[in-house]
């Protein structure tokens, strides 16, 4: 790892120094230019399709101009609510266990390794887990709940990691004070640590859910349907979701549907922007209060 510093080779001249700064600037500028180009193209193609009826109408396989996002938006709403309900308690509970109960224990080491590995598993592999486990082995079929469970497992490592970071910002002195006053471990956690870490935990949770909203690949695998006229009416209903609908329109051979895909992307990106905005607002509020 430590190599001797090479001072014998030729030193870069003033020109090389200057050229390198520009090269570095280019490294940051190229991806951001692509982002700007992407946003511009999507807006240019999709903005004319945005309307209230586009948000509420069912999709159509024949006519792109009357097709809408209604069932997809409802499906995404169902998925968010169910995914959050499943993943948040488990993820935050796991984080509390690792930070407040089992610091430096052997089990904690194994858990940490598992979480680190899960964070790197491709999302489509979670889809395969959902297909094998929820759809077939547990016979849930291609339902909203199977999709939500799959997404919940997918974002679990993100929630655990961010909740742990939030818990770590609470000073140990407060824990010691609470325990010294005779509080039990859980009383200390519940009444001292959690209230202080809550904004941080929520910020992480919101960002994790934003991630789940944009996921397409696992939903394709666990059988979100490409074409459906109604939103789900229960946890065991068939469903589609916003990114699924965009995928379907993007792969439709009729060119007119591509503009619908662009409009769908605008809705998706706007939703994510609002959600991220809330998370950032929460984080800033929390940070300004702490200082």
């Amino acid at each position, binding site marked *: *790892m430590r190599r001797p510093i090479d001072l014998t080779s030729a030193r870069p001249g003033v020109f090389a120094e200057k050229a390198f700064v520009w090269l*570095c600037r280019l490294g940051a500028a190229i*991806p951001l230019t692509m*982002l700007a180009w992407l946003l511009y193209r999507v807006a240019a193609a999709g903005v004319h399709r945005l309307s209230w009826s586009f948000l509420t109408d069912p999709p159509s396989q024949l006519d792109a101009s009357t097709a809408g996002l209604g069932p997809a938006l409802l499906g995404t709403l169902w998925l968010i609510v169910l995914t959050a309900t499943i993943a948040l308690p488990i993820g935050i509970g796991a984080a509390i266990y690792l930070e407040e109960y089992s610091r430096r224990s052997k089990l904690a080491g194994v858990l940490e390794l598992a979480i680190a590995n899960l964070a790197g598993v491709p*999302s*489509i592999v979670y889809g395969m887990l959902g297909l094998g486990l929820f759809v077939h082995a547990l016979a849930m079929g291609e339902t909203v709940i199977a999709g939500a469970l799959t997404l919940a497992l997918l974002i679990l490592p993100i929630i655990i990691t961010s909740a742990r970071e939030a818990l770590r910002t609470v000073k140990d002195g407060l824990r010691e004070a609470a325990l010294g006053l*005779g509080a039990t471990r859980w009383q200390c956690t519940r009444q001292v640590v959690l209230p202080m870490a809550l904004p941080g935990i929520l910020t992480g949770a919101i960002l994790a859910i934003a991630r789940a909203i944009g996921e397409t690949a696992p939903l394709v695998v666990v059988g979100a349907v490409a074409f459906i006229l109604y939103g789900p009416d229960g946890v065991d209903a068939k469903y589609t979701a916003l990114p699924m609908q965009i995928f379907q329109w993007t792969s439709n051979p009729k060119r007119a549907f591509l503009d619908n895909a*662009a409009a769908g*992307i605008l809705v998706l990106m706007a939703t994510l922007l609002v959600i991220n905005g809330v998370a950032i607002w929460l984080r800033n509020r929390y940070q300004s209060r702490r200082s």
Partner: protein
Amino acid sequence: MTAPAVGRTALHTPTRGRAARWYERLIELGLAGCGMTSILVTIGIVVILAHESKDFFAQVSLGEFLGSTKWTPIIGDHRSYGVWPLLSATLTTAAIALAVAIPLGLLAAIYLSEYAAPRTRKIIKPALELLAGVPTIVFGYFAITTLTPALRDYIPGLAGGNLLSAGLMMGIMIVPLVASLSEDAIYAVPQSLREAAAGLGGGPFEAIRKVIVPSAWSGIAAAITLAASRAIGETMIVAIAAGNEARFGFDPRQPGQTATAYIVDISKGETPHGSVAYQTIFAVAAMLFVMTLIMNVISHRLSRRLRAAARA
């Protein structure tokens, strides 16, 4: 600082005695149960992938799977199960993506940590985060509608769906990951080393090339490995823009089908539970899981080495 709730809230759970001990024990068990979920999920992935691909490998030898270059699992009279067409497309797109993401991400990281003024940093960092937050389906749309037509003006013989534009798009997608992890690694290089390098009379470029990047190298290598793993597992961009044609070859102008795109392609249609098509996607996913797992472990080791070195 707002006061924690201690002063206001009565301790309304039992504090002493047997009831308290049971209550505490129960809570701890519940929390440990939540923690165990991540182990169960890990086991679940391994068991499901192994169980479902077991039937596949009962019919197809591992030698054919890894040795043949023909992948025709559901069409034609003579079925062939050589995974190389999927692998060649996966490796080609990943290589293109890394060729884009490593230089751009590393340069961006160096710019942010060594050159950018605090005000510029405050604009560029969130912008890169925004890029990182774009769902991959959006990149897929952009690749097929904009990037491919633009490239076709310059590259003759570029197919409508091709490995090149899928790989390039994936590279742009991965830049923020490489940039942010490399920046962390560069940031961890002690300030004293920078000062020492400056004291020897060189400019920042010389310090970066001879001191800072070599010192941060294990962290940068961890970032690159993680980026490779991400590129191999990326799905929607290649499913939309790479052409979905399982053919063996490394020519980026040609269409191809990556392992992930194959899984999506099969999943889109009706796949009866227990059919050969159903089994193939689990076998392909198992291969994908092993590949990414190896890279994640390497990346994990490298970043641990960086942390150990930073402490030393």
